[in-house]
């Protein structure tokens, strides 16, 4: 265990400090920030154009109530009609509302370059109607009972619940398909990237005598496990960093009203999406990564030298690409329960793509997921154990020639 830790830590830190990993880590974040920045610039330029602002002058009680309802649309800095006129002339506001009261009657005048915003108008009329009603009650000398009678309103029942339910269902459906796509794409890109890192790392030591020095110090299985473990930990680090960044971004964005209302309106989509990602599906992705990394290590050890690492890992890359393309055909609910998808969801590596699709689409239950997961874990254990026994032979073999010739030559040294 001690030597495993040494190999693991040395390889992990080496990868972690490498420029390529930092680039791999930062590039997607920068891309997102640039995209968001461009989007933000576009939004701010258009929003500054569209930002509707009016001033309210006159009756202070109406103004304060309107401000409490339409804070974003009211420019509270303007206190007098003369200032409002000047600001309107300068085109700094879209208009101003003048509220006055004469002979127990509220009078509202709007002066603007365009019509008064309908939301502001509704809120304004609601406030003023209420105040006018109070004055009317006072001046008409009606009793409280009569006032109650006069205040009876027509019954109004909202059927918004059904609509909400439908909206929620739509959001869930959208969340399911988007989370499937996200899972598949994450699986594909991370698998390809880390398989490449793993095969190159292993192949770097091929064609040199460094393997001899290493195997004169540590058992091949310990060394192999340490190296593979380091790459898995590296990948986990990247995922943890992204998850952390995502959580921090969520809380920061949630402080802005625009995003706050967006998150609130889309909470079903967001919670379903997160629920789909951070569940057994994530384990499938991780297991898929581990299988790919182990297979990539085998490919790397079969290359003649580091230059041949990419060539040696081609069969694995093609296999992952094949599974990726195939799985895209099963994303939609209804297709994901075909016989191919059913069988594939129990085959290691295929299952990392296909089983999450079936689980999200409710074509497979949790128990089936666990069985598929156990099959993959058993596969990893078997392959790692078997390969760590011949890893030394592959690494110490410097035979040139075809892929199969190198395998034969390595095994002949046994």
């Amino acid at each position, binding site marked *: 265990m001690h030597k495993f830790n040494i190999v693991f830590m040395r390889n992990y830190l080496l990868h972690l400090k490498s420029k390529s990993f930092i680039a791999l880590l930062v590039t997607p974040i920068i891309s997102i920030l640039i995209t968001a920045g461009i989007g933000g610039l576009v939004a701010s330029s258009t929003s500054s154009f569209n930002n509707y602002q009016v001033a309210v002058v006159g009756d202070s009680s109406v103004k304060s109530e309107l401000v409490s309802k339409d804070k974003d649309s009211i420019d509270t800095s303007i206190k007098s009609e003369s200032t409002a006129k000047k600001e309107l002339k300068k085109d700094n506001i879209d208009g101003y509302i003048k509220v006055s009261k004469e002979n127990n009657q509220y009078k509202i005048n709007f002066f603007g370059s365009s019509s008064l915003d309908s939301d502001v108008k509704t809120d304004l009329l609601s406030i003023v109607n209420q105040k006018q009603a109070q004055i009317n009650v006072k001046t008409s000398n009606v009793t409280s009972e009569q006032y109650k009678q006069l205040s009876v309103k027509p019954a109004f029942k909202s059927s918004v619940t059904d609509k909400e339910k439908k909206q929620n269902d739509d959001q869930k459906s959208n969340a399911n398909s988007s989370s499937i796509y996200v899972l598949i794409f994450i699986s594909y890109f991370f698998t390809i990237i880390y398989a490449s890192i793993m095969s190159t790392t292993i192949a770097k030591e091929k064609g040199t005598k*460094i393997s*001899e*020095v*290493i195997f*004169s*110090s*540590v058992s091949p299985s310990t060394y192999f496990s340490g190296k593979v473990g380091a790459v898995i930990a590296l990948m986990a680090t990247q995922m943890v960093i992204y998850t952390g960044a995502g959580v921090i971004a969520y809380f920061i964005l949630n402080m802005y009203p625009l995003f706050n209302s967006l998150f609130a309106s889309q909470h079903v989509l967001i919670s379903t999406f997160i629920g789909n990602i951070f569940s057994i599906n994530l384990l499938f992705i991780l297991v898929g990564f581990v299988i790919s990394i182990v297979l990539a290590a085998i490919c790397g050890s079969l290359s003649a030298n580091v230059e041949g690492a990419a060539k040696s890992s081609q069969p694995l890359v093609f296999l992952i690409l094949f599974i990726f393309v195939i799985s895209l055909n099963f994303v939609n609910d209804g297709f994901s329960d075909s016989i191919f998808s059913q069988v594939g969801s129990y085959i290691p590596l295929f299952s990392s793509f296909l089983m999450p699709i079936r689980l999200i689409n409710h074509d497979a239950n949790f128990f089936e997921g666990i069985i598929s997961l156990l099959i993959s874990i058993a596969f990893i254990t078997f392959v790692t154990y078997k390969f760590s026994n011949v890893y030394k032979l592959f690494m110490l073999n410097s035979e040139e020639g075809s892929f199969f010739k190198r395998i034969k030559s390595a095994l002949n040294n*046994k």
Partner: protein
Amino acid sequence: MNNVSFEAKDGQILGLIGQNGAGKSTTFHSILRFIEFEGKITFNNHEISVKDFNEIGYLPEERSLFEDLTIESQITYFAELKGRDKKWVKERIDSWLKRFEVKGEAKDKIKSLSKGNQQKVQLICTLIHEPKLVILDEPFSGLDPVNADLLKKEIIRTKENGAAIIFSSHDMNNVEELCDHVVMLRNGNVVLNGSVDEIRNQFGKKHVFVTTDMSVNELLSLDGIQEVIARGANRYKITLTDEEYGKALFNAVSHGEYIEEFSQQPPTLDEIFREKAVAKHA
């Protein structure tokens, strides 16, 4: 490899010699369990296994280091794999770099060093953990005479600390100078096995280095003379058909008088190596 058997004793240096392909590296690979074999290799009275690797230092024939690491991290990493504590190693690195006269600082990258200095770092990696068994595959190749002397000093120092050392070399002068015991392999078979003196004496003291006024023809006319090679003015190297003719030769060239040089010696290891290598083709 067939019936190869030899012993490397504590505090002794064993030279493994033989032509290319004779089986030297295969022997090392067998000791280190890189390859499977029939037979038994023991270390401290038990069959050698991966558990013993902490007490073994190995220098492969071709040098190889992680070029992106610093000298310090390279040495520390290999020593840690040999079971040494990081702190223990770091305390010793500077003195090792000084002893080997490595041109560079501990924080320098391996790739910034010259080939010779990289080789010294590799030797430090092999020896710093104070192994009990040291295997050096062609340790002198690529080293200039000054650096070869530095390595010899360290090999002797390691031997004096009680380690058993096995090294292979094509330079018989180094083998003769350093080794207590020599094993020669040919086509996977042991053809010589013994101390340097034992092996040389096996071949008889047939070589005579002499300074005399006699001519080559006069010397060749004497009994038991196989070959005469002139080494300079009046200086010859004479090969006898049998070492017993040495006394008669001495009498013939000295006539009972003082002579400047007469030395009867067994063949050098280099000569024996060539003879044995030629015998392969006979």
